[in-house]
């Protein structure tokens, strides 16, 4: 029985036990991409935890009986279940193995994120429902937040979502990623196809000072760099005024807002060399997966580039089926179609 796996021990195929996020981080690590080190608390640990604390499957039965539109009942059930899951003890065996993993990471600051196994987790509407806890600095809070991730499966939104789609409660599982934090000087996202047009021949990098959370939350308009994927040339850059940044709140966990000093506000957050390095990483990741990716990245205070996450792009990739031009027997037919006005088409 596997309760914990380090990123090095994970491949994409391990998704059913490490969840989508965990599998992706393992895969990136295996591909030689600089991912901050970490481990995954596997689904088996969650099952064991549930089996120990709810041997009669009361929770599953309660949820399965809820009606999707009965918001009030879902709300009441959610509060009760979460309270229960966050208060009962962890099985000692699991607690020990999580603590050991945390110690191996250097026992510094880590992030704890839920990593769902559901196929639908790539769906943007569901991806946002899972929890992420940043800047946790001791074993107690790591343990506490692993449990909070598990409990998030029973948030009002999650339950309502499962009920709406009539998904079974049996076999419901959640893996949890524990990963060393990067104190970022700059961070952001990278799209290996243009989010605006779906163009696969460009890589779009968005970045700002400090942690990436302020971009994700939309509090800062990031700098934007468009790079030609084939030649590596930066073909467009829009430098915005970045008045604030997120920095780690080591005391309380989470992040703090702080102002960016005036002179730096209108400077690009990345050097050309960093853009080039990110570009190369983006291109390699896309090649590795064989399809366009949405990537989260960070550059540490000592200028090291880390990839925090990579997900397959989904919005444009669904539209790929139709050819750009109607196939023709020969090049000449294309010429005639272009120059023939309406008569040829």
């Amino acid at each position, binding site marked *: 029985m596997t309760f914990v796996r380090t990123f090095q021990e994970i491949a994409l195929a391990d998704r059913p036990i490490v969840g989508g996020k965990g599998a992706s981080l393992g895969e990136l690590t295996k591909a030689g991409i600089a991912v901050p080190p970490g481990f995954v608390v596997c689904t088996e640990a969650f099952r064991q935890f549930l089996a120990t604390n709810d041997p009669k499957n009361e929770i599953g039965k309660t949820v399965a009986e809820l009606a999707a539109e009965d918001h009030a009942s879902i709300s009441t059930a959610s509060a009760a279940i979460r309270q229960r899951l966050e208060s009962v003890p962890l099985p000692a065996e699991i607690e020990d193995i999580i603590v050991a993993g945390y110690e191996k990471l250097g026992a510094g600051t880590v992030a704890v994120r839920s990593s769902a196994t559901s196929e639908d987790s790539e769906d943007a509407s569901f991806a946002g429902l899972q929890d992420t806890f940043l800047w946790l600095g001791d074993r107690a809070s790591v343990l506490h937040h692993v449990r909070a991730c598990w409990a998030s499966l029973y948030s009002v939104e999650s339950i309502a979502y499962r009920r709406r789609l009539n998904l079974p409660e049996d076999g419901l599982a959640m893996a949890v990623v524990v990963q060393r934090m990067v104190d970022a000087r700059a961070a952001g996202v990278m799209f290996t196809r*243009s989010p*605006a*047009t*779906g*163009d*696969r*021949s*460009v890589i779009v990098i968005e970045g700002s000072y400090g942690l990436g959370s302020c971009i994700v939350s939309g509090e800062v308009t990031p700098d934007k760099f*468009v790079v*030609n*994927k*084939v*030649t590596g*040339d*930066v*073909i*467009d850059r829009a430098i915005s005024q970045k008045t604030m940044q997120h920095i780690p709140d080591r005391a309380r966990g989470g992040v703090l807002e702080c102002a960016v000093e005036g002179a730096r506000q209108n400077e690009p957050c990345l050097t050309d060399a960093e853009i080039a390095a990110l570009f190369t990483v983006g291109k390699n990741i896309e090649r590795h997966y064989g399809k366009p990716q949405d990537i989260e990245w960070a550059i540490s205070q000592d200028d090291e580039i880390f990839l925090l996450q990579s997900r397959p792009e989904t919005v444009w990739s669904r539209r*790929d*089926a*139709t*050819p*750009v*031009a109607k*196939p*023709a027997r*020969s*090049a*000449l037919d*294309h*010429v*005639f179609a*272009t*120059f*023939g*006005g*309406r*008569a*040829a088409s």
Partner: protein
Amino acid sequence: MGHIGKSAFPLPSEAASAPGAEGWEDLYPYFTRFRPEDDEKFWFYNSMHFPEPMPAFDAMSAEIAYMALGAVTARVFAFPTVLGIEYRIVNGRVYITSHAVTDPAKITERLALFQERAGHYYQNWATLFAGWQTRMKNLVAECSAIRVPELGEFEPGETVTNARGFAENHALRESWDRTFELYSKMWHHHFEFLMLGYGAYLVFFQFCKAAFPEIQDQSVARMVAGIDVLMFRPDDELKRLAAKALEHGVDGKFVEGAKPDDILASLRQLGEPGKNWLAELEQSREPWFNISSGDGFYHHQRSWNDDLSVPFAALPRYIRMIKAGESMDRPTEALKQERARIISEYRALLATDDDRGTFDQMLGLCHLVFPYVEDHKFYCEHWFVTTFYNKVREFGALLARNDVLDDAEDIFQLRHREADEALADLMLAWAAGIPCAGGQHFKPIVKRRREILKALEQWNAPPALGPMPDAVEDPAVQMLWGITSESLQRWSAPIEKGRENEVTGFAASPGVTEGIARVLKTAADIGQILDGEILVCPVTNPSWGPVFGRIKAAVSDIGGTMSHAAIVAREYGLPAVVGTGQATKRITTGQRLRVDGNRGVVTILG
């Protein structure tokens, strides 16, 4: 094309004569003047080909080129949606408009013809192009060999002994007419393949834009552009001559700033080594020094053969580079591999096998037709046109010797039909045994026209006239005009606040750099440029080749992503912004510039 509201451009009827240029209409044929009904049409200034006021004689290059262009598109190949181009001249500037076919029945009829006729050329391209090259070489040779009779006191004896049956004044007429016939024929040959070549490019270009909405024009150009193209050849010949100078031990004669005549004279005194190098020079000169310092439309754009100072200015530096062991060879293998890599990466990014098939078909056709697109200018605008203008000079010299003109160059101040009259005057006067009347008639005209041209230079030509079309969607119109809805927008938009120090154009070659501007109006000034400066010029062509090894970036008034400046800059890895329309006007030598070749923006920093 439909119209929208009030135009950002003046109407043709609102364009007043430039101050001091009154009477400019007299320089050009009546049919080039704007007519009242022209206010209904949209015209744009063809600054690409005619960036300066047209001397009276040179205006025939618009007349004859548009005769040929329209014939090829409208009548020969029957492009389905376009007829030819109409042009007008106002204040010495050439404005053009195109005519579209909109009747669906007509388009269908034309499409059937187009498929048959264009199909014939595309399917037999390589063979037909080889025939074209032979025809063009013969045309140049014939033009060059045209004899300009001297009209001496007596007819040569052979006229009698061979019973030729006509006198030298008739021979003069034949020579003059033949010179023009060849010129006209050259323009027909010029467009014979060109529109089909551009057409193939445009089809691929549109496909790339649809498949990759953010692709830059320069990326499409890099997939299509050839490596072994004639435009690099003149510069390659200079490198060869530099190597030969070292090989024959005559390199010491090539010092910076020395006059070509002095260098040639000193080489002649050197005996065998000098003679050997001069033989190498002769070999390079024909045909490779027949490149114009301009774009083949103005008489004053002379070739390297006419003025050796341009090529010779490059030799001292090339000799130094060889001595220093620096490689000057174009890395053609590496360039080919890079092109192949770019093509295969774009191809791999396409979503479907169908699209990959289409991409292969379209790019294959581009690679078939592009050698013509790239090389025709050498044969036509450079080799033929410089030969032609020199031939016209010979007629000018004849008129000057007979006191119709003060100087051979003055012939370019006459319309070509006026030059025809002047020659008729000479033919008659010679036959009658009296002096020509033309001196009294033409000399004041020539003087006044030089003043008019000077005054016209000051006129700030609007980029367009007349009501603006709401969209330019027809690919053939885009191809012929080289303009799109976006470029119309750019022209009509007032300069944005805070962007007064920016000059925009086509992003022609990637990279961003800063440096000091050197504004050069002609290739003859190339000697002024210092290593590491940013070249700002009206237009470049192969005669500018030697300068690219010295500069940091290139900015031009004229040209697109397939222009000479763009192609050479990409090869040298220099940022370039082309087709700005106004860089040489707004930028002065010594200013600090930032050239952003990725976005097509030049910023004047101060």
